[in-house]
């Protein structure tokens, strides 16, 4: 029997029109936004105030930074071309970043969310579901672009004496531009799901690897620009090496020329480029919607079908070794650390980000001598060593905010498993703290020692930096574990959303303040001492050897106290909240 003949064809049901469907999605998005805003307004005022104040400070900081920069360029360089280069590079970088971020967000939204599974069982067509998820992904991936880009445009407009119409039109430039990388990322996500459903991680790793290689190559080319910094020759050389960003087919080039022309009142050029960007954005979106119409359902089935491979996990030799090495820790804490360690090594999202960031830093530190930093004067070497240490700590703080802060929130959902074990609740927190400190110490101590050896720093400074890094590791771990327990988000099971929430943002801010306090306490006396070494005739501020010893001892004492408070206080707050918590 022909399978197509198994049922007689009944009268087709009345289908919703595309207009009705579009209207229902618009209504859904509107209700979700209104309810979300109402919750924000009626919820914690402290939280709302924190969000507004932090955003305002961040915006104002960026505004003054850009304003100073544009004024400097106008006063000293007088080259309008240079601003076009800066905009070109800025938008080209954004283009690449937005392709990746929109692609990843859309892939998760279209293929891994329960909402997509629900919508696919409704009469909504694949391109309508795609459109709904696409604009959500664009909003998620582009909000930082608006936050970063708007102070830049406002300051540029003020420096260029732009009319009010420039401030009205630049958001339209931004929105049109965001659609181009968003659509390209979407097409990539749809093609990967349809044709490489089991190789999506490989595709991502290869893509990121290629990007890093290209960026490194560009970085080295720029670094080698001959001539004295900011001299006319140096600038010419630099612009020559950035010539690739001026290719007339880059959307970033259209943005750059269009925005500069609009700010300077050349509206025919400005609107011409806005038209080009909008037309390309429309075509790119249309192409993405057509690909979604034809491939979304096929890809969804293939992605779901590719998930069944069951893998056996093992590598228990490492666990035995861990028990032997850390025999002095209580057994239950060792078991908790091991559980987190297994999750860490089995989750490529965690160790790959860790590896990429710290790998890049290690690559830079290894090449310090190629950059001839080690033959600079002690003053410069000291400054560079503290800058290297600060960068290491800043990257560590993003790691603790992204991966350690959400640990307790994620644990809370399965707390009954731990809650039934013969464990004190505080042991769970101490376990997390030990896990975080251990991983952080291993990674950062190696990096800082490497940096100092490459800079030919003396043993005393190496020990000082090692001590500082240890304080930073304990402090950042204490802050993330403590605040993670104080402000858990038990409803969310996506760690990136927990980290991006209010608690995660506050955790990052507190971590930044802590790093600033520790680094400044020790960097200031060292800087003043080495400044005097380079310029023995200087009087007043630079420190003598005796004064340096005294102030360094005071600074070490202060940083130890700050470190201890920064570690213990959040942990105590966290333990107290965790013990009272009901699950």
């Amino acid at each position, binding site marked *: 029997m022909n399978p197509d003949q198994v049922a*007689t064809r009944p009268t087709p049901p009345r289908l919703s029109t595309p207009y009705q469907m579009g209207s229902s999605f618009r209504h859904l998005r509107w209700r979700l936004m209104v*309810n979300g805003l109402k919750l924000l307004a009626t919820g914690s005022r402290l939280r709302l105030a924190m969000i507004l104040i932090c955003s305002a400070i961040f915006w104002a900081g960026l505004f003054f930074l850009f304003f100073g920069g544009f004024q400097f360029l106008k006063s000293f360089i007088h080259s309008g071309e240079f601003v076009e280069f800066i905009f070109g590079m800025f938008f080209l970088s954004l283009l690449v970043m937005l392709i990746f971020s929109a692609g990843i967000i859309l892939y998760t939204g279209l293929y891994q969310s329960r909402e997509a599974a629900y919508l696919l069982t409704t*009469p909504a067509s694949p391109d309508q579901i795609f459109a709904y998820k696409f604009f959500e992904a664009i909003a998620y991936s582009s909000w930082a672009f608006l936050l970063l880009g708007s102070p830049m445009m406002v300051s540029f407009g003020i420096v260029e004496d732009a009319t009010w119409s420039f401030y009205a039109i630049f958001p339209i430039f931004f929105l049109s531009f965001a659609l181009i990388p968003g659509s390209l990322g979407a097409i990539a996500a749809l093609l990967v799901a349809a044709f490489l459903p089991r190789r999506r991680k490989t595709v991502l790793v290869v893509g990121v690897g290629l990007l890093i290689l290209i960026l490194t190559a560009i970085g080295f080319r720029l670094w080698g620009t001959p001539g004295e910094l900011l001299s006319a020759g140096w600038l010419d050389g630099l612009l020559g090496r950035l010539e690739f960003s001026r290719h007339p087919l880059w959307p970033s080039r259209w943005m750059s020329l269009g925005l500069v022309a609009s700010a300077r009142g050349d509206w025919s050029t400005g609107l011409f480029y806005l038209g080009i960007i909008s037309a390309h954005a429309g075509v790119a979106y249309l192409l993405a919607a057509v690909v979604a119409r034809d491939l979304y359902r096929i890809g969804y089935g293939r992605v779901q079908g590719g998930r069944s*491979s069951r893998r056996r996990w093992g590598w228990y030799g490492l666990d035995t070794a861990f028990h032997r090495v850390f025999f002095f820790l209580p057994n239950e804490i060792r078991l908790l650390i091991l559980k987190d360690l297994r999750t860490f090594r089995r989750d490529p999202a965690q160790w790959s980000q860790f590896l990429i960031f710290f790998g890049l830093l290690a690559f830079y530190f290894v090449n310090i001598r190629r950059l001839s930093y080690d033959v600079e004067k002690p003053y410069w070497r000291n400054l560079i060593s503290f800058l290297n240490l600060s960068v290491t700590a800043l990257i560590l703080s993003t790691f603790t905010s992204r991966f350690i802060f959400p640990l307790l929130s994620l644990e809370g959902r399965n707390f009954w498993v731990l809650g039934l074990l013969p464990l004190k609740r505080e042991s769970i927190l101490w376990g997390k703290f030990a896990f975080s400190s251990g991983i952080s110490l291993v990674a950062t101590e190696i990096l800082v020692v490497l940096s100092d050896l490459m800079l030919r720093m003396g043993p005393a400074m190496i020990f000082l930096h090692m001590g500082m890094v240890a304080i930073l590791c304990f402090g950042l771990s204490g802050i993330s574990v403590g605040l993670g327990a104080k402000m858990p988000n038990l409803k969310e099971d996506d760690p990136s959303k927990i980290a991006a929430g209010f608690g995660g943002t506050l955790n990052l801010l507190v971590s930044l303040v802590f790093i600033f306090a520790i680094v400044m306490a020790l960097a200031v006396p060292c800087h003043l001492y080495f400044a005097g070494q380079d310029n023995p005739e200087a009087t007043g501020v630079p420190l003598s050897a005796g004064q340096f010893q005294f102030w360094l001892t005071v600074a070490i004492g202060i940083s130890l106290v700050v470190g201890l408070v920064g570690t213990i206080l959040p942990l105590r707050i966290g333990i107290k909240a965790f013990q009272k918590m009901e699950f």
Partner: protein
Amino acid sequence: MIELRGVTKTYGSKRAVDHLDLSVRAGELYAFLGPNGAGKTTTIKMVCGLLRPDSGVVKVGGFLAASPEARQLIAYVPDQPYLYEKLTGREFLRFVVEMYGLDPKSSLRRIAELIETFEMGDYIDELSESYSHGMKQRVVFASALVHDPKVLIVDEPLVGLDPRSARIVKDLFVAQARSGVAVLMSTHLLSIAEELADTIGIVDHGRMLANGTLTELRERSQMHGPLEDLFLKLTGGDRPLVDGRLLVESRESDR
């Protein structure tokens, strides 16, 4: 209304559904039984158009399962209900009404009826992020029925429901089937299959092991005891043993 002919679906090297034939008529309540990993959810997802079969044909109401016409006829209630956390239950029901292009006036009446049927009046205007699992399940059932589907597909219908809600849902299945809706219900609870189903299908390793009314299954297997014994016999060979012995000896009174 639901027709599967020679359907096969593989995940990598694993064959989840293996040349499966299944048919559910309008007005029939079909219980789809099988052990964990037997291929029930994969089958249901193919009927809903979420997965495509590698071979064979899946049709709903005469239309290919992934077509918009088939989806217009279907209502699917998964085991883990999905609701928008930042919508109230009523807003979600309205969204479904708009999605299916229904007449707004008559739909409002239908929504009010369903709120009463599922006793949701106390919480329907609160955001669904505050609902318990059972409350969410009731809203999802209401959303499934608001557009008067011709095919109702339910995966593990009674998970998380209290006895009263479970009774409402069971009565509703029977009422839907009596009104001409084809109901395909996947479950591990053999008692509901015994109590409600017109037809029972037992599947294991993706293959249909038995298909028919309870009486037909008993006659074919020459087993006249509870459905549990029949199910265990077909899917794994009697009751599970530990060290070659039954964990608990059956009492005569159980029989």
